[in-house]
């Protein structure tokens, strides 16, 4: 990756910083090497959104009942409105989260990016993976998706790829495990 070689205009400071960087800032979260991010399944949004909906239904109904008993109709309406707002927010965040996820299998490591509020980019060398597991919650199983999680010796490595179709998830796990075994380095 080379820095951009645009003529840096003296007036715009950011381009100078980009010069300093060696990587253009707008490509900081790109997979690099002309690769494209592999995206997670659309069902991720549905799974997360439905999960949020269930919770909001429960909380909204319970809250509305309590509000009805204590404050009458006004309290119940406020709580239901609150639940609806939270639900809308949750769906938006679910969609944004789905869009933020991307992973790329490079020659020696796996790159993963995600995050709506805190954007993250994680590089996990295959040789560092201790184990890879595939998990699927009840709602995930309804949608036929699973989460692939990478574990290294560092607890801070929080690399999991959610919402892959089950077949794809197991294939990815097997591929990662094989690459990890080939390049395993111990600690």
């Amino acid at each position, binding site marked *: *990756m*080379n*820095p951009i*070689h645009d*003529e*840096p205009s*003296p007036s715009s*400071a*950011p381009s*100078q*910083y*980009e*010069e*300093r*960087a*060696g*990587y*253009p*800032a707008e*490509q*900081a*979260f790109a997979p*690099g090497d002309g690769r494209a991010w592999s995206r997670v399944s659309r069902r991720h949004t549905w799974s997360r959104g439905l999960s949020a909906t269930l919770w909001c239904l429960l909380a909204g109904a319970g809250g509305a009942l309590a509000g009805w008993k204590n404050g009458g109709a006004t309290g119940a309406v406020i709580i239901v409105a609150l639940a609806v707002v939270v639900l809308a927010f949750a769906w938006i965040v679910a969609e944004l989260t789905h869009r933020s996820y991307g992973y790329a299998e490079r020659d*020696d*490591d796996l790159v993963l990016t995600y*995050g709506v*509020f*805190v*954007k*993250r*980019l*994680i*590089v*996990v*060398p295959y*040789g*560092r993976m201790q184990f890879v597991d595939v998990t699927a919650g009840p709602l995930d199983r309804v949608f036929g998706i699973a989460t692939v999680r990478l574990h*290294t*010796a*560092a*607890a*801070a*490595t929080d*690399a999991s790829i959610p919402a892959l179709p089950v077949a794809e998830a197991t294939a990815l796990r097997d591929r990662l495990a094989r690459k990890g075994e080939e390049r395993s*380095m*111990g*600690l």
Partner: protein
Amino acid sequence: MSDAPEDEPPPRPDPPRPTFAPPDPGQPPAPRPYPPGHYAPQGGSHPYPPQGPYPPPRGPGPHPPQGAGPHPPGAYPPQTGGPHTPQAAYPPQNAEPHSPQGAFPSQGAGPHSPRGAFPSQGAGPQYPQGAYPAQGAGPYPSGAYPPQGAGQYPPQGGPRPYSPPGGPGPYPPQVGHPYPPASYSAPPRPIHFSEGTHRLHWATAPLRAFVVLVIYFVLLGLPLLFAAVTGDDTAQALTLFAITGAAALVTAAGAGLWGWRAVRFRVEGDDLVVVTGLVRARTRSIPLSRVQAIDLVRPLMTRVFGLTEVRVEVAGGERSEILLRYLGRNPAQQLRAELLARAAGLPGQTPEAPETPFWRLGFGTLLGSLLMRVPVIATFLLFLGSLMFLLVFAELAMLAVAVPALLAMIRTVVVPVVMYGGFTVALSPDGVRLRYGVLETRMQTVPPGRVQAVALVEPLAWRPLSLARLEVTVAGYAGERQALSSVLLPVAPRAVCVRLIGEIFPGTVLDAIPLVPPSPKSVAADRPEGAGTDDTVFVARRGFPSRRTDVIAHARAQSVRMTVNPLQRMLGVATVHIDAPPGPVRVKAAGRDLGEARAIVESVAQRALAARRTGGDTARWAR
């Protein structure tokens, strides 16, 4: 290093920075983010050598730096101030022919070569004897460190052939005074743990029994006796005491015998096999190549019998360690030597590897440095103030302040003094050896390549004295032992800490790694913040008032992350984390420009790959 501020990187110029001026149009469009002159004093050494700031680690180096030849003398004048001038301190760097890596010791020199991973002190090219002449002079009052005179630790004669026995005398005679105190260096009886099954020391039984009896007396025996003396029904209380006492005696005898007889261990091939239990045997087998550290602990109570607890740390979480309590003093040392030799890939009968004394912590230094800390001073003032208030106004409520303050001072001063009293560090081919403790003596051995990351901590009040503390992350230590064992040097002159880092990550000269300050866009509280890298380690410095310099070897990095939180997104900066196994050291470089952060991520990932490929497997360090 007399003045800490002097060894900061060149001060960050105020924005707009003239140094980020557009590149010279006459220049080829090579990535040259630092225009000549910004880091000019450093010669060709780039913050992120070899080419450009974050190039792949061993590229052909097309970068025609200023000064393509050997580095001019004084390559690092602005970085190292203080007593040891750069020329004296790092002469081999200047003398070294210009390698592709520029100023940094080349990897081919074997920073991670298994054998001689901890080269003897004198033999290392980085530190000729007398490279740190400032220990007696400089900021310390003369005589503050009397034992650390220049001639205290004579150099070892050349590199040690740490070879399997068979040849005549695997180790050349050790030069210098016999280092371990006489009580440690008694010739061990020839026990070979690799042959047959072994048991714990017989004194384990009475010791265990004694512990059970103490518990009985505290819980039941003493109250009963008390009741017999003061109560009405003396006879009944005495009968009860006799019955429970007899039961406790039997239990104690059983527990003692069980604790002694139930544990058998043997060395089988490359495994340490520990069998626990008399009726149902539970067998644990530990591959010795996975051993992360071996500690010998001598609690106060076991000193009577000369007993030692052997702890074998294996990477794998909270309860993964092996405890052999207790062995005799000499067998414990012999077992450690055998385990380490086998872990290193040598025959079991190899005698204990020789060690070179490295540093001894004087009691005055320890106490003085513990007192010279801002929280301690503040607590002491609080204590004095509350005490005066208490006495002058007879206000008993001030006890609520005085007592916690006193307890806090005991915790922060007395406990460390008791724990770290008599701290010595020695280097051996088997790794770094630590001995410390006033009441409970601990002897830790951390084999080469087991240290994941190191932090050099300089509290505010220590910086004028140029003192520092070294903390380490070792994969084996988890949970409570992490807190106990994470200190490599409780307090030492900064130069000693830096030297020890150079021994742990061979070839690393911490102060020679140029640190690049964070982006001017970032909100930074402390100016010395920065990050830098060479082919062996990544260094990040941060923190105020206590400054931390976190060092992680590329070969040990588990993963690299870059995070941008909402505030950082507004500023256009990012934080780069180099992940190590859980421990006190968290390596992160905050406030980097987005593009620079990504470049750091890629550079670190590639360097880690290169370091792991060339470094090989450290599991068998002597092979």
